[in-house]
């Protein structure tokens, strides 16, 4: 088979970690849903930052501080363009996607939502897009309502109209980190806007894999995280519509986010500085820029095509090789579906399964994947999740199938 649209061998060579062996075998990394590996160019960008221009930004009038400031602002501009945002000022850097959701829940939520208002979540949501809203609900008496799912792990939108009654915000993932389902965001945005509500999109599992266009989605807020898209740990972002951000009070308080501080109080700065208190993850923001450059170099459309083909291969291969012993919790077709495969194999507990897979060099995740409400609906405590990315190929899928088979043998009492 040689149908994949990316040259995976060449790509793998750019990722230092994918060169390593575990238990004397080449590593087969199938946990990019948890965090992706990083190409050398991202590490180089951060090393270069530290070796040449490390300085705190915005406040130093010396050369390397200027250079660091410019590099960070260029990164903001690059991320804005990557997301299809109109202006760089709509990008707020955070430490991860989780902080970005919390920022909206605290700043927008506590200002705009009152007792009885409804926040609509989908059953597919990650805890990052659940718990901040539950905290808000507990503090302000806001009601949380849930969009159910179909048997295939997609959103069930049959009763959307009824669900939207009283809704002020829909917070929904662009791609499930468990079933791989990709909800129809523009459709949802239109429905939500029709009732005067806002939509927050969790793009954590989307932006690494598909071209992102916040304008085409007509989203109001979008959160994402660098470490799942070839970028470093320690940085994420909130994109928000300028008029919404402008009207929001600060969240974290501290240096940089102020216009003035007196003994009596403070005046917040403009957007996005208002939301960026304290020293930012400077090296990480710059590393993220290199990750964006890397992804754009391959082409987001090419990455998407590659993943669609590989996911189709995986669905086919696993089903053929493991038959009825295997359950895949998610859509069986690749349409509007990412390369996330949540598996149940015989009655082997996911922890035990993943432990045996590890011995074959195959890295997968076992657990609830921070989606306990979804697990409840799926009727399981945990799944074994393999997630495909741009550096995976058919051989990786074959290795997964082999290892699953071997685990079956090991636990066949």
């Amino acid at each position, binding site marked *: 088979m040689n149908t994949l649209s990316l040259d995976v061998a060449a790509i793998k060579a750019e990722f230092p970690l994918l060169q390593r062996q575990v238990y004397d075998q080449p590593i087969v990394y199938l946990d990019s849903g948890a965090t992706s590996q990083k190409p050398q160019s991202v590490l180089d960008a951060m090393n270069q930052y530290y070796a040449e221009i490390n300085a705190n930004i915005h406040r130093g009038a010396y050369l390397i501080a200027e250079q660091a400031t410019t590099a960070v602002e260029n990164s903001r501009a690059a991320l804005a363009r990557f997301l299809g945002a109109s202006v760089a000022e709509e990008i707020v850097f955070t430490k991860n996607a989780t902080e970005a959701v919390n920022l909206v829940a605290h700043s927008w939520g506590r200002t705009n939502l009152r007792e009885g208002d409804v926040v609509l979540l989908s059953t597919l949501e990650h805890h990052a897009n659940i718990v901040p809203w539950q905290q808000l609900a507990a503090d302000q008496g806001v009601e949380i309502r849930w969009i159910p799912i179909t048997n295939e792990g997609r959103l069930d939108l049959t009763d959307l109209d009824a669900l939207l009654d009283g809704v002020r915000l829909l917070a929904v993932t662009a791609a499930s980190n468990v079933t791989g389902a990709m909800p129809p965001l523009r459709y949802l945005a239109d429905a939500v806007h029709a009732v005067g509500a806002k939509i927050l999109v969790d793009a954590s599992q989307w932006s690494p894999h598909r071209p992102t266009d916040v304008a085409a989605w007509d989203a109001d807020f979008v959160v994402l995280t660098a470490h799942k898209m070839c970028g470093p740990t320690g940085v994420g972002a909130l994109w928000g519509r300028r008029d919404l951000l402008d009207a929001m009070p600060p969240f974290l308080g501290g240096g940089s986010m102020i216009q003035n501080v007196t003994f009596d109080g403070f005046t917040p700065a403009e957007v996005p500085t208002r939301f960026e208190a304290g020293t930012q993850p400077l090296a990480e923001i710059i590393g993220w820029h290199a990750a964006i450059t890397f992804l754009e170099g391959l082409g987001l459309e090419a990455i998407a095509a590659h993943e669609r083909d590989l996911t189709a291969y995986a669905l086919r291969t696993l089903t053929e090789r493991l038959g009825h012993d295997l359950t895949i919790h998610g859509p069986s077709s690749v349409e509007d579906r990412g390369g996330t495969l949540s598996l149940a194999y015989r009655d082997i507990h996911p922890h035990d399964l993943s*432990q045996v897979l590890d011995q074959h060099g195959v890295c997968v995740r*076992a*657990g609830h994947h921070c989606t306990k409400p979804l697990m409840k609906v799926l009727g399981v405590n945990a799944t074994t999740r393999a997630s495909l990315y741009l550096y995976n190929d058919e051989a990786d899928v074959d290795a997964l199938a082999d290892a699953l088979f071997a685990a079956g043998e*090991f636990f066949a009492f």
Partner: protein
Amino acid sequence: MAGLEDLYREIILDHYRNPRNRGELEVPPATMAEGFNPLCGDEIQVYVEVRQGIISEVRLGGQGCSISQSSASMMSTAVIGKSTDGARDVMRDFKKMMSIHEDGLDGDATSGQTADRPGASGLGDLEALRGVVKFPVRIKCATLGWNTLDQVLDLLEVE
């Protein structure tokens, strides 16, 4: 590098295949607590009945992986017949064995060999779980039942 045989010792698989003391007890007279492994979603219910200061019965509910299930199963056989203080002693020894911070802060947790440490004797079959410390992520599996037992003992003290 730790291999599967360090983790899946025969006696562990035996307790997993044939879990001891599964079931429920009526509450009261028994006392029950429920535990979660926040990392993987496993849950367990531990029922304990104490008669004349001695743990007379233990029953286990819930679901989990081979490590959490076998650890709880072995725990149940280890504490039945002991006083609550005696059960706490075993628990302390077991948790000591499971601690990655034990050999001094900052040590390499995966290399710590502690076979000759004093308190770690008297664990009997439970010694088979020693290999778990080489797999830090699985420590929470091995201690799930114990932490839940701890809650039960606390409840018993309040009563």
